[in-house]
């Protein structure tokens, strides 16, 4: 290695020195970027712990005298945090279960079964993703709230999100990568396709399963517009909706409105952040990159 380096002419050395400056600038830009992305979250936590809202520059740093958990108590009294989190959880769980069960079935059919119409169904799963939600909200509201009478009902909340099409595509992508021969052998041994799916295919794609669950989770957990339209009773509202209602209606009547609001925001953000940090490697490697390739 050292001999090679000695052999480098002055041109190469100059090029190397020239590369140092852009690398520093690049690092600086990335650092500023990370700060811009993270600071609001840091500030969210700080703000949620302040007894008195301190919006001065010094207020961006924690002051032991001004720290309190009382904002969490306030927001809990206003919108029943446990109840709201539970509603968000039921909403998300319903979507995840439907997506995993039915999404895996279609994904399996699209990847490992030979049938006419397969190309069409796959094209449909892609097409659905570009259908703009804004056109659907009014008819969906009419249908689900008025015709089916599913307003203020978990089912009505879950229904439009029940099967995540992105998850279908990820399932298909992963099933395609499994060795065909294994399935042929099992078929010869007399295993049914359903057995192949549950006993062989699904256990083999466990990392994809994590991705699918995580990706499917953040949709309903963060969703505001649809549950906001469909739930009017506070006992059924997911946290994103009850927090938004607090923000638009109740905030002014609280002593420290920002503190309580930010405390609610922290509760809404923490589960997502924790899950993502735990599974981030799988999440990044798994779905999206495999989707873009080719």
């Amino acid at each position: 290695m050292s001999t090679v380096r000695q052999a480098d002419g002055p041109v190469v050395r100059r090029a190397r020195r020239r590369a140092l400056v852009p690398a520093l600038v690049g690092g600086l830009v990335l650092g500023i970027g990370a700060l811009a992305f993270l600071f609001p979250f840091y500030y969210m936590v700080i703000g949620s712990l302040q007894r008195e809202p301190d919006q001065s520059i010094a207020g961006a740093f924690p002051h032991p005298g001004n720290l309190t958990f009382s904002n969490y108590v306030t927001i809990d009294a206003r919108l029943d945090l446990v109840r709201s989190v539970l509603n968000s959880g039921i909403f998300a769980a319903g979507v995840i279960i439907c997506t995993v069960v039915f999404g895996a079935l279609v994904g399996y059919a699209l990847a490992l079964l030979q049938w006419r119409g397969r190309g069409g169904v796959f094209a449909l799963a892609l097409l659905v993703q570009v259908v703009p939600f804004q056109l659907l909200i009014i008819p969906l509201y009419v249908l689900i709230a008025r015709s089916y009478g599913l307003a203020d009902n978990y089912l009505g909340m879950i229904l439009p999100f029940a099967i995540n099409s992105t998850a279908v595509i990820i399932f298909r992508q992963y099933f395609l990568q499994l060795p065909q021969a294994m399935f042929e052998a099992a078929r010869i041994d007399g295993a049914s396709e359903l057995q192949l799916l549950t006993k062989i295919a699904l256990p083999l794609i466990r990392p994809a399963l994590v991705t699918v669950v995580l990706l499917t989770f953040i949709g309903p957990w963060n969703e505001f517009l649809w549950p906001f339209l469909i739930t009017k009773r506070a006992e059924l509202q997911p946290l994103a909706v009850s927090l938004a209602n607090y923000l638009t209606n109740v905030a002014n009547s609280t002593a420290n409105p920002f503190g309580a609001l930010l405390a609610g925001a922290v509760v809404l953000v923490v589960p997502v952040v924790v899950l993502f940090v735990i599974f981030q490697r799988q999440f990044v490697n798994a779905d999206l990159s495999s989707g873009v390739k080719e």
Partner: protein
Amino acid sequence: MATSTTAPAAVAPSVREPRSRTRRGVRSNPLGWIFSAPYLVFIALVFAYPLGFAVYMSFHDYFFTAPGVTVPRPFVGLENYTAALTDPAVRQSFVNVAVFLVINVPLTVVLSLVLASLLDRAVHAKAFLRVSFYLPYLTSSVAVVGVWLFLFNGGGIVNRVLGPLAPDPSWLVNERWAMPSIALFVTWKGLGFYILLYLAALQNVAKDLYEAAATDGASRWQSFVNVTIPSLRPATVLVLILAIITGANLFTEPYLLTGGGGPNGASRSPVLVMYQEGIEQGQPGYAAAIGVLLVIGTLVLSYLSNRFAGGRES
């Protein structure tokens, strides 16, 4: 459902079919349809039927009734459309969303491209940087709106840092700054996803192109402009289209950040108008017409981005 959170992950997977052994003569497995049945029913129920229903409603004087009650809902032709197009509030909302897109889309493309390329070459703290970039994308708008209100209100820390440069009235209650502030918020919030898209696309840029450029004495900047950007063109088209669709869907941010599209409707988006007219005022036919117009606009813009940014390949 194609919301801003889930839709983008479509990322144009390989449309090419896996090698098919179904060519003529080989039997078609009926289980294919059976396994797909729940999904197809779901699509029919939640996408296809409402889509048709929306178009139908937009041509009728539609109003809400209790379930099971039938009332005449007369066909009114293009009345809803002409009413929408001549309504100053609707026009204003379309201008607003145009302002939004003019700020949000270029900013999204440039920032995500630059940050993704830098991140791709970064040696240290890669995982940390990645997580911090994705964080806003993964979290709920409702939660981060809370912090932005805290940051950007009249006495907020942003104005304190800016001192005399701070606008008066403050950002979100200032007619001129409300929409740009929302555009900035949405850019910040969505950037992580687009960085992810570009990062994935960067893995596929042929390495020998860079080597060739380096041999020819190209600087890093030159090889970025002449190798990276052209190679990423398909990803850029995707980013453009997804940013346009997400922008056209704008609702939560003006609803919460500017208290329902204020001040004076300066940040009211078309979807917000649809909500106010369709559900609050009980005129779903009118709202559906606005929706159809919005979708037509979105499709035209997406087509144009594909046409002009997609360029040579197609």
